């Protein structure tokens, strides 16, 4: 297809995103973003509540995310549009909520992308240090990794997520290899759980406090919804990819906890930068060290890659509806990607990475995610109320409604409390940001939005309207 040909029959032909993805890509997108959380970050929950506290957090937050995955599978297999939860909110709750959800997504993913790129830079600095060069400047590598992944995203979604599948699978395998390498069938040989595990250092309040970083084990799995407009068969692939994704993560999270808590004293683990890599160092096996170094590298790269994909989809669909400047709603006529959104997010991600505010950025990212999970149960209940079962075609119907929604809501409230323990100021600062942004949307931005056009689903009128 030449450029001129497309140009001439522009009136007939639409340039949209390309439908090329299968369930494997959905899995790669979801798990790819998250898996880095097993290599770093989750262990801060050990610092907040002790090793057992972190294990409880791992499973309780795992339950939270299972609810997220169930709810998302139903809604997104029905509202199959780029922007994921943003498009869901737009159809079910209304424009202002949609604007906020879109912002949560863009913020959470762009900030996570910055953190991932920094990790790659730091790992290279460690490598250089070990080879005798201590003064490596990680910045060019941070920019390079962001630029490379942006290029990949720019040139097409299929290649992007196929690569993500390969490196995510490799990173997952590195965790499995480490687990086998520490001989779990011979407790005491390498693993020292008996000597290392202590009682809860803070009691039960510490367990709740550790929920905050327990989110790291799974943060981003809900990103699978962003691919809705690019999968071949959304109603089948999205639930399949998301559900297998959450299972993979539950396994990876438990294995990670088991290996690390059996090798590292909890006080060290609670503040370590790269806990799995440290665990591999403790085994004394060079092979395992190399595997885990590469695994950490791959996991960070896969995560940044998926984040670029998701953040740009959310930004793009907001632009398309004019929630954001409409200029961003363009699709590349050859590569069929939201190229302007991908481009604009490069300098933003780089600036997040270079401000030296990594802690702030990560906290903001987690909290934006948490706000998104709080939105989901409200959304789910309204979805079933406005369109009861049987009134529209649903790709997947999750069981036990409204139990998952209620559980999810209760867990979100608890996690807000956990965040308040220690990170109260950041929580308030972030709430003020979203409140000001909402006012800006209502008073200024919404006037550019076409009212009826944003409701694109082929559904009957909702009940009660």
């Amino acid at each position, binding site marked *: 297809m030449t*450029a*001129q040909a*497309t*140009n001439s029959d*522009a009136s007939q032909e*639409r*340039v*949209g*995103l390309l*439908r090329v993805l299968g369930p494997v890509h959905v899995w790669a997108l979801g798990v790819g973003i998250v898996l880095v959380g097993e290599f770093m970050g989750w262990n801060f929950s050990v610092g907040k509540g002790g090793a057992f506290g972190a294990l409880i957090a791992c499973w309780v937050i795992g339950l939270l995310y299972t609810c997220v995955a169930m709810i998302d599978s139903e809604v997104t297999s029905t*509202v*199959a*549009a*780029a922007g994921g939860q943003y498009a869901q909110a737009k159809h079910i709750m209304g424009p202002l909520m949609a604007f906020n959800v879109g912002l949560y997504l863009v913020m959470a993913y762009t900030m996570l992308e910055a953190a991932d790129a920094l990790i790659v830079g730091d790992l290279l600095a460690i490598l*250089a240090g070990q*080879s005798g*060069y201590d003064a*490596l*400047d990680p910045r*060019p*590598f941070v920019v*390079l990794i*962001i*630029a*490379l992944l*942006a*290029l990949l995203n*720019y040139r097409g979604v299929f290649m992007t997520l196929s690569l993500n599948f390969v490196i995510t699978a490799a990173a997952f395998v590195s965790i499995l290899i480490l687990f086998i390498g520490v001989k779990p069938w011979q407790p005491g040989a390498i693993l020292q759980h008996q000597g290392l595990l202590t009682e809860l250092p803070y009691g039960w309040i510490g367990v709740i406090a550790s929920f905050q970083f327990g989110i790291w084990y799974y943060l981003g799995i809900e990103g699978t919804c962003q691919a*809705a*407009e690019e999968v*071949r*068969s*959304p*109603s*089948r692939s999205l639930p399949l990819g998301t559900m297998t994704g959450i299972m993979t993560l539950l396994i990876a999270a438990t294995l990670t906890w088991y290996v690390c808590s059996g090798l590292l004293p909890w006080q060290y683990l609670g503040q370590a930068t790269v806990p799995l890599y440290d665990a591999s160092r403790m085994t004394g096996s060079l092979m395992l060290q190399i595997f885990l170094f590469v695994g950490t590298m791959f996991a960070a790269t896969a995560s940044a890659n998926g984040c670029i994909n998701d953040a740009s989809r959310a930004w793009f669909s907001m632009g*398309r509806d004019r929630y954001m400047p*409409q200029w961003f*709603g*363009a*699709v*590349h*006529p*050859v590569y069929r990607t939201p*190229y*302007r959104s991908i*481009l604009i997010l*490069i300098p933003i991600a780089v600036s997040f990475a270079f401000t030296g505010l990594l802690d702030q950025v990560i906290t903001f990212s987690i909290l934006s995610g948490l706000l998104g999970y709080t939105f989901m149960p409200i959304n789910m209940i309204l979805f079933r109320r406005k369109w009861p*079962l*049987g*009134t529209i*075609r*649903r*790709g*997947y*119907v*999750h*069981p036990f*409604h409204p139990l998952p929604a209620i559980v999810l809501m209760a867990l979100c409230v608890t996690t807000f409390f956990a965040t308040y323990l220690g990170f109260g100021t950041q929580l308030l600062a972030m709430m003020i940001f979203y409140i000001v942004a909402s006012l800006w949307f209502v008073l200024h931005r919404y006037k550019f939005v076409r009212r009826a056009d944003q409701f*694109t689903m*082929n559904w009957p009128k909702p009940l009660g309207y």
Partner: protein
Amino acid sequence: MWIILEYAAWAIAAGILLWMIMDAARVNRQFDEDTLMSSKEGVDELLEHGDVPEAVEGTKG
């Protein structure tokens, strides 16, 4: 060796960014804005293709 790599990383990153910006500018020139903006939210196409297979409501609830 690492110093060379640092400079190489800067150079490659700059090259990639430059290429993307030039490509974006080229696309902006070659296509009119309406074509670029013509994508629609996905669902209509989805239903037309009968892409929702055994998705009958209430099957599992």
